[in-house]
């Protein structure tokens, strides 16, 4: 088996192809995270601010989340009118999933910002948008970051499914391996997917720590 693996990876052309798949996998799984954060923050804010909207939006989000990924990959071109084999479909589908995943935690994190802190900000003379961006949103970051970590791991694994509809990414190694009954590309695909998930998760943890120094100040020398 290792001989197989050696032979498979020994080919420079194959290695270049694998690298391409890896890069593709990164942007197919992570771009949706960026888009989803951009969408979930205003939608989550709307749920936090307008109670009646909350039930509706979170209900829709829950339904979306139960649609199987493969079905979503196929529905998106039908709904959006895009080509069925266009890689953008995967990005749209995963953006929808991740947004659905993040709306509720964002709304709840905003709910959890103490009223007196928001009132104090208003009384200091903040206008609503700067207040949201510099007071309320930063305080929601720990919860948002937790949601993003879950979303990124799940996206990294879901992108592989997209290979079935020809979207590229490391999933191509699986379809390739299965069709040729050849284990080496499948092993390489599994290892790289896991490694990618791990590295992205570590980076996200580092990012969260950099953005939230105050969460680690708890309980230090109360005089």
């Amino acid at each position, binding site marked *: 088996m290792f001989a197989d693996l050696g032979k498979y990876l020994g080919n420079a052309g194959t290695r270049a192809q694998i690298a391409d798949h890896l890069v593709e996998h990164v942007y197919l799984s992570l771009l949706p995270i960026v888009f989803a954060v951009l969408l979930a923050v205003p939608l989550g804010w709307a749920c936090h601010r307008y109670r009646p909207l909350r039930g509706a939006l979170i209900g829709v989000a829950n339904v979306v989340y139960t649609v199987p990924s493969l079905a979503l990959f196929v529905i998106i071109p039908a709904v959006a009118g895009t080509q069925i084999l266009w890689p953008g479909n995967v990005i749209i589908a995963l953006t929808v999933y991740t947004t659905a995943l993040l709306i509720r935690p964002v709304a709840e994190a905003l709910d959890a910002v103490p009223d007196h802190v928001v009132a*104090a900000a*208003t009384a*200091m003379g*903040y206008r609503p948008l700067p207040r949201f961006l510099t007071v309320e949103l930063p305080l929601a970051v720990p919860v948002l970051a937790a949601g993003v970590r879950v979303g990124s791991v799940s996206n990294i694994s879901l992108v592989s499914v997209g290979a079935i509809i020809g979207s590229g990414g490391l999933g191509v190694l699986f379809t390739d391996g299965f069709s040729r009954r050849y284990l080496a590309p499948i092993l390489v695909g599994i290892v790289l997917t896991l490694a990618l998930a791990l590295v992205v998760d570590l980076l996200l943890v580092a990012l969260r720590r950099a953005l939230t120094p*105050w969460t680690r100040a708890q309980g230090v020398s109360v*005089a």
Partner: protein
Amino acid sequence: MIEFRAVSKRFDDGTVAVDDLDLVVEAGTITVFVGPSGCGKTTSLRMINRMLDPTSGTVLVDGRDVLQVDPPRLRRGIGYVIQQAGLFPHRTVLDNVATVPLLSGWSKRDARARAAELLELVGLDGDMGRRYPVQLSGGQQQRVGVARALAADPPVLLMDEPFSAVDPVVREGLQDELLRLHAELGKTVVFVTHDIDEAVRIGEKVAVFRQGGVLAQYDRPAELLARPADDFVASFVGKDRGYRGLSFVDPAGIEVRGGATTRLGEPVSPSREWLLALDADERPRGWLPPGTSADGPLTEDLLVPGGSLYERGTAVRGALDSALSSPSGLGVVVEPTGRYAGVLRGAQVLDVIDRERAERG
């Protein structure tokens, strides 16, 4: 100057929180809004900086209808301190204090320098600036809240139960600090509390509210205690209002007399009267009961602890208390430095009060 003209506030659910309020807060004074919970104090305060707008009537700040001013701009000129301090948990203490200067367009550097000045002004260590709010005690957080409210040097300061959540000892310190700051900075302060003792302690004028958002009485504290406008105010200011009113009686007429004293370390000879024991620095240490005899020199364990000390020139309430709490019945008077000045009798204090009442007519 802040003026309420026929101001009413009715919330959407029909609650009338403030009912036809007419009131003038003089510039440069501390005015206290006091009353039981739910009587419209916070609502009245928040109509000054437009956190709420009146249903009818007009609120003027420096002669200008606040409804004519863009709210964020208005608020940057009005400091606001609340009970839970409301500090931003994600910003350091220094950056919390720098908030309003930054919003008003100062450079980051100037804003931080100003913030450091203010931390010093409210009696906090420069080191505190680097901490986050969770790392401070409740009293320290309130100081930061006051510093933050004062950072852009607003002429008006609104305080909503700022000291209610801290323990009584810390609260008294914070009240003293506020009075000192006020003397130093001369801001117009509107202070909300439900605690009548706090109100008469710090207010130059006190507005007592009753349920339904009605102003029951607006007066100087001494007047409030001496002449409550009605039964509600009388019961709200409390049963011992007569005694508390002594805080406002001029102490000038109290004659301090010399008393019988002895010293720690001197021989003890039995005496027919109580002797006040002083130490080498002339500070009172306690009372030696009549008839006490001992072989050696006078030591502290022979003494009965003294009552409260009355500092010469301070409110008459303290003078009477020193006499009432003293084992000998003589109140001990000290200089501001703590040195013994003399003694007084409770009856003397009552005479002064009677004379003052007669003069007032």
